[in-house]
């Protein structure tokens, strides 16, 4: 059992899959000699060679499109977006070409697009985005957002083995901040489409994912101590396909639900989750489903502004108390 960071876990996951399966190869900007902007692929070029670790021009549409073409031919490309924000430059290729390939043309397109996402890092409007919501309404894609080192490793491995395109959004705030002891000789494969109960509780449920899981756990701890409230925290892990069973189970258990995400509120993923809860467990609700999300503005740079715009632990505490009192 070695202590590994979230970043190291991603690294290990990709490494193991490349060792296991010669069809897996990497495409991205500065991923070779440099090892990627955040060093996720450090050492890969030396180990796997320039044919499997390909430095590309600055051309996200070409990276994603080329990955799709290679995937059709039986390879298993893993694309890095240097910052996930730039996935916007491949939006057409991902939504119109990649996502539809199997349905319209029976073309298998097993590929992964991954990259550093998320805020709380003073990255400003173009190095802090959470693009989940932009792809949630595209049939044909899968979306995963690991919160723990274990899932970071387990989900990248499952994503690479998946027969369909998977968007893997890793949170750069977690890269080196969290550590976890992972078994050295156990193969970790987190199933895509399955949520995880991060904390058991009975009074209020917080449904969330990625870095927000930690704020939820902190808030749960605080209201436990200060209010004696028992809060369940559900870490969705996969957003598409969504784990309805797990969502409805926690709703039926607590009847009070908070959905928390880092992205802006309007049009965010919480809307979809609310609709599913409303649809599947309406009678179980003792209070309105509430959302804690970022304010509806582009994410500003200054710490005072970023901290105000993004949800903080205290906000979750407020929201949980409000629900408990309702």
């Amino acid at each position, binding site marked *: 059992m070695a202590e590994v960071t979230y970043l190291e876990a991603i690294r290990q996951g990709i490494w193991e899959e490349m060792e296991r399966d010669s069809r897996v190869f990497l495409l991205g900007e500065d991923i070779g000699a440099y090892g990627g902007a955040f060093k996720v692929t450090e050492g890969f070029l030396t180990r796997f060679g320039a044919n499997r670790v390909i430095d590309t021009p600055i051309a996200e549409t*070409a990276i994603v499109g080329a990955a*799709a073409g290679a995937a059709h*031919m039986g390879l298993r490309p893993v694309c890095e977006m240097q910052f996930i924000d730039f996935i916007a430059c491949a939006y057409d*290729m991902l939504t119109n*070409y990649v996502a539809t390939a199997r349905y319209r043309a*029976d*073309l298998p397109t097993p590929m992964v697009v991954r990259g550093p996402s998320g805020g709380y890092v003073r990255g400003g409007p173009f190095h802090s985005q959470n693009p989940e919501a932009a792809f949630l309404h595209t*049939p044909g894609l899968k979306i995963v957002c690991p919160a723990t080192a274990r899932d970071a490793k387990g989900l990248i491995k499952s994503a690479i083995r998946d027969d369909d395109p998977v968007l893997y959004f890793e949170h750069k705030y977690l890269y080196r901040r969290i550590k976890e002891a992972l078994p050295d000789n156990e193969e970790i494969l987190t199933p895509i489409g399955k949520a995880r109960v991060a904390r058991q509780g009975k009074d209020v449920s917080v449904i969330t994912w990625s870095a927000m899981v930690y704020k939820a756990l902190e808030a749960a701890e605080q209201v436990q101590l200060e209010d004696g409230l028992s809060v369940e925290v559900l870490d969705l892990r996969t957003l598409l396909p969504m784990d309805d069973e797990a969502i409805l189970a926690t709703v039926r258990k607590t009847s009070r639900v908070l959905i928390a995400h880092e992205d802006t509120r309007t049009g965010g993923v919480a809307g979809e989750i609310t609709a599913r809860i409303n649809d599947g467990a309406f009678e179980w609700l003792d209070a309105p489903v509430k959302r804690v999300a970022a304010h509806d503005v582009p994410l500003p740079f200054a710490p005072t502004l970023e901290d105000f715009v993004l949800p903080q632990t205290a906000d979750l505490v407020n929201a949980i108390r409000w629900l408990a009192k309702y």
Partner: protein
Amino acid sequence: MPAKTTTEPPVRPIPAGLSRAQLLELFYWMTLTRILEERLVSLYRQSKLIGGLFRSLGQEADAVGSAYALDRTRGDILSPLIRNLGSMLVQGATPLEVLRQYMAKAASPTRGRELNIHFNDLQRGFLGQISPLGDMVPVMAGVTLSFKLAGQDRVGMVYVGDGAMSTGAFHEGMTLAAVQRLPLVVICEHNGFAYSTPHHRQTAVAELRTKALAYGIPGVRADGNDVLAVYETTKVAVDRARSGGGPTLVELVTFRMKGHAEHDNQSYMPKELLAEWELKDPIARYRKQLLEERWASSEDLEQVGQRIAAELDAALAECESEPLPSADTALVGVLAEPPAADAEWYRSPGG
């Protein structure tokens, strides 16, 4: 006086190392393209087709001649555009498949999910386009990257129009293919217009092969209405790609004789231009050449026409009465897992 029989010796030797049989094949594919499209037009007029109809009238030589330069036995793959019916036929797509696609039949290659010639078979060697222009260039860069990584001597070919060359996707795909020296031949069909937009409003570049210079690859140009010139020029590019020489941009100069699609009467099109290019019709011209050079006899060409008519009659007879896909197939196969999308509750609200 055209030769009556093929026994007489050719006036000149056949160029490009082609055999008489191959010359006839080229004639067959070009003629098949045209007649199939003419059949489609009458079906369209009888409202037997679903959606729009796109013609390649006057461009049959560029499509057929370029695709013919690929080696089907080696597993070469091309990605056509809407005017490359001929290229797909050469790669083994059948008239029956095309008719079924245009009629959205259940038995069509895409089972009624996609339109017209947007279908593919990587075994036979064609990858259907999607509508957003330019996207197939990066995708074919990826296909040919897989050839390179596997050390295969296969070649890929992708078609772009003079209009599609303005897209960012084209540029990014070209940049990647060139810097990776991928075995990709890029065919630019310079047919003068992009929908109603004349070439000079699309780009400030006169000869589109010039764009190759921006990628550090060779750019060549040929008369797109001369099928043998198209074949020869493309073949050089294909051979270069196969031998590790990287991509080539092949500009084929031709003209779009019909509207963008059948609904478009091309009121914007200068009549003189049409008249001028009418005289350059690639099939009439090739026919004349075959006869004058005594590379084929009029009987040979007759037979080709008859064969095609018979094939198309049969294909049409087979598919016309076929059913459309049944609704319950609509939700299947978005992903491998889960195998089908949810059926919406409102269809059986009781349950």
